[in-house]
């Protein structure tokens, strides 16, 4: 399947399901490590998803606030707020890394 077939397939689907993961401090503050989410059609980037999650209020609003240093990965690669997302993607939110 090439990318244009994939896009047609996604356009046919009424809902684009994505997997959202949370790690470390974010996982604890938000009280969950993973969820499946139906993406509203207007949410097309990782940054737009972050904005959407923030509207849940409470810890979501404070932890995902624009001023917080939240890192994003899309399909297990470091991403930015502008990175496009769509059905089937795995999007992860986490604090700056502290390994080594």
């Amino acid at each position, binding site marked *: 399947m090439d990318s244009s077939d994939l896009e047609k397939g996604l356009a046919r689907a009424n809902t684009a399901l994505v997997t959202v993961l949370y790690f470390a401090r974010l996982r604890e503050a938000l009280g969950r490590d993973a969820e499946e989410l139906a993406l509203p059609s207007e949410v097309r980037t990782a940054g737009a998803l972050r904005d959407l999650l923030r509207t849940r209020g409470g810890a979501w609003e404070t932890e995902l606030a624009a001023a917080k240093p939240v890192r994003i990965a899309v399909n*297990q690669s470091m991403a930015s707020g502008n990175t496009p997302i769509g059905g089937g993607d795995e999007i992860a939110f*986490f*604090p700056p*890394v502290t*390994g*080594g």
Partner: protein
Amino acid sequence: MNIRVQTEDFDVGAELAAMRGDRAIGAIACFVGLVRDVNDGSVVAELTLEHYPGMTEKALADIVAQSKERWDIMDVRVIHRVGRLHPTDQIVFVAVAGAHRGEAFAACEFIMDYLKTQAPFWKKEQTPGGERWVDARASDDAAAQRWHGREAS
């Protein structure tokens, strides 16, 4: 190239010995990171390392691939431990083999600097004041940043 994420400890001598097969190798540079008992003024009794399974291995492989593009090196080994660790425990191992020491030293430092800022690991410390997530350091970002736009030597 050999990349491992594991809870078990590792034997530095055995790892280095395993890299010695190629007769063209003239140098192996190696770094071992240990758990300190004091961080940011607090006594650390225990450290828990969390990671993002799947992405971790991918990020480490990408960092090693970048080092092989920059320097003429022959073999790389990276081991990073996860789970519960204590002061004096080994956390991370990076070894680079090449024909000469220059590229081995440089690639080893590059891999560590990128690992600190790009690989999805997070440390949580147990201190007398309770548990706390370790904050990322600006000095680590600066260390990784200095490789940008710099040619391999």
